[in-house]
């Protein structure tokens, strides 16, 4: 697990920096691949476009997925992940600012593994990042490929 990547799907550069910082603060050393929108995330996962030729069987340890993104939104990304046999067991954690009910419900309906709201307070955000890393990278067992 330690060598597995973390796919961070985040369109906000500030949030990207802060998230990476928070991960670093928690000494999470896994490679973080950042997709700046949903399309890019899907390209990565399915070895297309920029990531053509990538071994799609090497799935990330966890996908940290924002919802509100230009082009392809987070929920659509989630839907396609679950729709594809190759990625359907991929752990996906929604990491978003939204606390809207409809987003929560839609996410779980599409089979998300976890839903984390980004707190404004960075201390809390850091804490959340630490918990996420601890859980998904150390405790959680992935399904066999």
């Amino acid at each position, binding site marked *: 697990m330690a060598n597995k990547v973390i796919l961070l799907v985040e369109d*906000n550069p500030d*949030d990207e920096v802060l998230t990476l910082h928070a991960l670093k603060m928690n000494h999470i050393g896994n490679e973080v691949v950042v997709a700046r929108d949903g399309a890019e995330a899907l390209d990565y996962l399915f070895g297309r476009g920029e990531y053509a030729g990538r071994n799609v069987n090497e799935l990330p340890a966890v996908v940290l997925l924002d919802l509100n993104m230009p082009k392809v939104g987070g929920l659509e990304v989630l839907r396609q992940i679950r729709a594809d046999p190759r990625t359907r067991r991929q752990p996906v954690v929604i990491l978003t*600012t939204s606390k809207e009910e409809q987003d929560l419900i839609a996410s779980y309906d599409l089979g998300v593994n976890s839903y984390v709201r980004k707190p404004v307070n960075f201390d809390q955000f850091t804490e959340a990042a630490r918990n996420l890393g601890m859980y998904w990278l150390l405790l959680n067992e992935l399904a066999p490929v």
Partner: protein
Amino acid sequence: MISVRGPLLWALIAFMFGCAVAAYKGIHLAGVQHTEKTERFTNLAERVVSQLKMRMQTYEYGLRGARGAVITAGVDGITREKFIAYSQSRDLDREFPGSRGYGFIRKVRPDEEASFLQAARRDGKPDFQIRQLTPHDGERLVIQYIEPEANNREAVGLDIASETNRRQAALVAMRDSTPILTRPITLVQASGKVKRGFLFLIPLYRSGASLASPESREQAAFGLAYTPLIIDEVLADFDFHDGEFSLALYDSDVEKPDRFYTSIKADAPVVDGLLKLIPVTLYGRHWQVEIKALPYFINALNLTDPREVAGQTAAISVLVAILIYLLSRERQRRSLLAQARLAAIVESANDAIIGTTLEGIITSWNRAAEQIFGYPAEEAIGQALSCLVVPSALQSEEAEILARIERGESVSHFTTVWRRRDGSDIDVSVTISPIRAADGRMMGVAKTVRDVTEQKRSEARFRLAVEAAPTAMLMMDQAQTITLANRKAEELFGYTGEELVGMALENLIPARLRQAHVGGHVCNFLAASSARTVDPGHNLCGLRKDGSEVPVEVGLNPVETPEGNLVLASVADLSQRRQLEQQLQAALERMKLAVDAAGIGIWIWRLADNHLIWDDRMLELYGAPKALRNDFSYDFWRAHVHPDDVGYVEEKLRQHITGTGIYDPIFRAIRDDGQIRWIQAAAIVERSQDGQIAQVVGINRDITEEKEAEARILELNTNLERRVEERTAELVTINRELEAFSYSVSHDLRAPLRSVDGFSNILLKSYADQLDDAGRDYLQRMRAAAQRMGLLIDDLLALSRITRTELAPEDLDLSALVEEVITQLREADPERQVEIRIQPEIRAWGDTRLVRIALDNLLGNAWKFTSKKAEACIEFGQEEHESRRAFFVRDNGAGFDMAYAQKLFGAFQRLHQVKEFPGTGIGLATVQRVVRKHGGEVWATGKVGHGAVFHFTLNR
């Protein structure tokens, strides 16, 4: 049978007796002949005396009658004319055979003589003179009247006091108050009969004078009634048994008895010593009656040879028997027949028939009398009727009636109350008829007594029925006098019953109607005498005592009563009916007013000729010229109905007539001027007596204006709906935009904040050594501001989410919700010691999630603002507030100034420093929004330092 058998029986008895006597005599005649003769003679003598006495008695009755006539007229009121009238009322020859007449002798003092003469001469006798047999100076006793005068002319004017015998007798009569005979005298009017006449006198006294002593009686006497008698005339028809005996009369008051009468053969020799001298006291005189048997008496006794006697007697007996039979058969037959019939009638009568003497002593008492009064005849006869059956209270009435009869007055019949043997009273009607002797003298009276108890009871029942009648009842006699009136009549006319009875009917009729009423109706009725109603429908009026009039209806009924035919009138008070008629009239007028005011036209459609009658309003509605008024037909109307409506209206009309529907159409009428009017119609069917529909009567009402107003309202409503739809669409759009806005707020506003906080944090942590204290403080402030703004955004989102959320109300257990909230608060702040009081079982109707948010805020506030209290207390409950159920959250925390109470519920409004009590100022705005969404209200009361109470209601 009896009448035939009587004489036959007697004849047989006589015959058998004769035979027996003959046989007996044949053996014992010699021994008994003397005794026989003596006994029979004695009997004969006694009969003679008795006969004589009876004859004299009849004159006494005559005297009393004459006296009565004078007394009735009065001492100063008696006139010749009256006395003659009285005398003529008597049949002297028949009633008093042998009397020369009856007269009046007036006592005249010598000093009164002149005035008496004057008066006597004025009294129908101009040549009246006083004649005296012997002159004297004493009081005169002048024969003023003697009737019939023809036989007694010489006696008129004679002063009987002028002769001793007459004066003495008159004096005795006056002093002893008794009828008196004079000694035998020679009457002036029959001077040939020397000392063979008498005066029979009875005194007359002034009424009211004392009669205590002989002297006072003499004083009180003002004269005498008298009758002059001649003994030969008195005894002219005396029964001498065909000459069996002779008779002589002596006046024995003198030493040598004075023989004043002798019959034929009075001086013949005595036969077989059969002579009787019998003293008789008669009206103050002592007479001796001398009776001598004559040979015929002996012969009649048949005292011949005893040996032949048997045979002869037997033979005679046969003859006598036959003779008796033949002689008496016819007379007895007749009398017995009459008597038997009479007796049978009397005995079988239903009415008590009681015979009495003039003195009231009962002489006969029939079976009905026994039954009615309970006394058997044996007990009743001989008693005074008044003592037996007349109650003591009515004795005087009885006495008066007797007196009237005695005075010769007529008493036909009367109703009174008598008493039975058992003491009970009985209503009787008594009819009185005089009993006269064969000679016409009144010997007594017969009273026919009828038990009228039942009749009285019927009368009482009739009165009760009349009294109980629901209408006024009046009974009138033929003279139209009211004889009976019930209480209703008293009420109707305002008179008391006593006033009404005896009143003339016309007093109850207004003067203007009297002639027609009394003269007409009642008279006609009395003539027709059958029940009927007087002029129903005419305005009959009654007149009350107070002069007011009352409309009445009168029914008349004939009533037959023993008193004659009466009329029973029932009088019904019509004032109430009249009032109802007036009310009906008023109601009709009011209805007409209403019909006019409502603009309703009335039409009548006669089915027989299809004719239509319209009132003025109908003409106006259809714009028809008034000239047409009565010239409509059904087709005229039909032509004015809108072509689109005519089918529907006619169908409605048809259904109404056939009874399958109701005619209540609304249709359009087209007027001749082209205007269209909306008409609302209704109708009723009127049937003739045989049930056929005669006509249809209906109304039309112009509802054009209503229709137009209705159309305008309809249009307005349509517009309104369209506008509402438009607005709703706008709102939906706005809502959608708002949602989008909220979403972007949620995401897009928070992200920069996170950057601010996140990078400030990184600077503080990773670059702290490059900043001084002020720099670090500023970064801290940036972070606080960013975090605070994050909270604000969260709360604003929550608020907007409440607005957007659809309400899903359900039954809530508020107490349990409060419990949950408190539990969470305690968990979040476990060090706090707060006393919580929650009323159990408080339920409400609301959206669980929203109410929970409201309670979170209210209880959170209470928890927060009591944080500085040593003994914090939070209470939840419900109470009545202005007749609504209000829930409340009360705390004893910091409280607030009521001056700011209105501001509490605005968004971002805070009454405390954030440093003191943290918060965004949106909580109570959220509470208010939740409550209002439920249709409730929230309000707060409080005082700085003394806590606050938040009330809220749900579901108005």
